[in-house]
């Protein structure tokens, strides 16, 4: 193998002598803030099994506290809210409280400051509701329209429900749009988003898109630069009656990066077609050490996870 000259043409600077730059202290402070926020999440009280006796005790105590809760309700503190600022048009509100809706008309855009973790830009003709604003959950409902979210927070802290999916932030920036029926598309520009719907999950990395459809949920993610015919075949496979023909096109058109789509198809194709998907993936990227073909064909969750983690280096 022909190697290049050992000394690159860097003039008087020798390899290894480019100055080491000192990382600013602010980086550690921002890392600590992210870790602290994660610790808050981790302290959530998880449901525990209770005995029947304990359940009765709990029920009795609940009855007794109803009165107290009623009294508290009358004097309850104001619900958490997020700041809203106008980007364009005539938006008149300056904050949105839990339970409030925010709606933009055809000429208005607004920016919601999501606590201290990011911002959501609300595009024209959009209807959105603040559902939760607690240290453990920041949640919006997007009934229709389009938003761009830029969030810097621990995974699964920021969620957006749409009529056909829930976008779960895994530390990212993305745009999501939907109509009232749930037909829409997610585009991730940084990090990862998990689109979830009734047990179906699509993991979407930066540079990739994922369509959603009413009654079906998220489709198969694909990269921006995937071929047009692959994108069309995926749409037909996910939401049409593409079946065998679509799968053939997808497998033929797939490049190394499109193993993102193929990995998702493993659990979505008919069992008889799974071997074709696995074969095509292995053609594109050799099976990594520790990933057994047979276990992948059986959809063993740990195997699929390991395989995805290795493939993700190519995405």
């Amino acid at each position, binding site marked *: 193998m022909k190697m290049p000259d050992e000394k*690159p043409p860097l003039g008087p600077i020798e390899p290894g002598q480019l100055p080491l*730059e000192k990382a*600013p202290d602010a980086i550690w402070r921002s890392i600590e803030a992210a870790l602290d926020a994660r610790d808050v999440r981790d302290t959530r009280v998880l449901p525990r099994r209770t005995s029947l006796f304990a359940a009765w005790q709990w029920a009795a105590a609940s009855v007794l506290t109803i009165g107290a809760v009623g009294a508290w309700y009358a004097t309850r503190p104001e619900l958490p809210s997020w700041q809203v600022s106008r980007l364009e048009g005539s938006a008149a509100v300056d904050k949105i409280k839990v339970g409030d809706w925010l709606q933009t008309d055809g000429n208005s855009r607004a920016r919601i400051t999501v606590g201290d973790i990011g911002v959501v830009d609300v595009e024209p003709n959009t209807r959105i509701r603040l559902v939760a604003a607690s240290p453990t959950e920041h949640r919006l409902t997007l009934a229709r329209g389009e938003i761009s979210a830029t969030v810097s927070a621990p995974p699964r802290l920021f969620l957006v429900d749409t009529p056909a999916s829930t976008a779960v932030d895994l530390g990212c*920036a993305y745009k999501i749009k939907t109509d009232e029926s749930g037909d829409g598309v997610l585009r991730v520009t940084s990090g990862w988003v998990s689109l979830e719907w009734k047990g179906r999950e699509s993991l979407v990395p930066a540079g990739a898109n994922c369509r959603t459809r009413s009654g079906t949920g998220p489709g198969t993610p694909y990269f921006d630069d995937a071929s047009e015919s692959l994108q069309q075949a995926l749409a037909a496979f996910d939401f049409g009656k593409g079946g065998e023909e679509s799968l053939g096109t997808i497998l033929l058109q797939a490049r190394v990066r499109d193993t993102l789509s193929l990995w998702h198809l493993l659990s979505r194709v008919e069992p008889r077609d799974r071997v074709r998907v696995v074969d095509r993936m292995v053609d594109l990227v050799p099976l990594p050490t520790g990933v057994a073909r047979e276990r992948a064909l059986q959809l063993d969750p740990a195997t699929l996870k390991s395989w995805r983690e290795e493939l993700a280096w190519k995405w």
Partner: protein
Amino acid sequence: MKKSGRRAVQGNGANLSDLEINEIVEGCRRGDREAFRAIYEAYKDKVYSIALYFFHGDQTEAGDATQQVFLKLLTSIGSFRGDSEFSTWLHRLVVNTCLDGSRRSKSRERFAEPEEMARIADPASQGEDMERQEVAGRVQAALSSLPPKLRMPVVLRYFEELSYAEVGQALQCSAGTVASRLNKGHKLLAEKLAKLREVATRR
């Protein structure tokens, strides 16, 4: 972990032995914040410098990338099986984070003209080794002009002093591919540096 001649363990004031690294990694796996802090202190300048050279000297991009690398490190440390060196694994994290960041900000990618690069290379301080700083600035500016695919191997090879095989592991490609990219990178660097010198002489 390489023990000599490498910024991975030197130049940061952190001379860590394999044993120490293993203990720290174990601590990180257990969620020990002190262990995480130790690993951050040991590698922060190295990670930041690679990102800074990769992102055209953009301190904001480099800071963001450094933060992401260490948060990813913490969340994925469980997948580090110890069958490669920790520094190799860390390089993969840095490479992927930088390339991801580069794709994200593709619209902001700059392939600067010589005049502009000379401006970037203008030394900010008047210290005693101003000449060396100026040269380093020129190199940084020339590096900025390389496409990401060529820039990263050059940074890893000549900033980190990695071997072709190690660069290949970090970039997930063969040593031959590394050699080919370095070859192309050298040629482009030579052209850019010649133009930069010309511009600097004219000023």
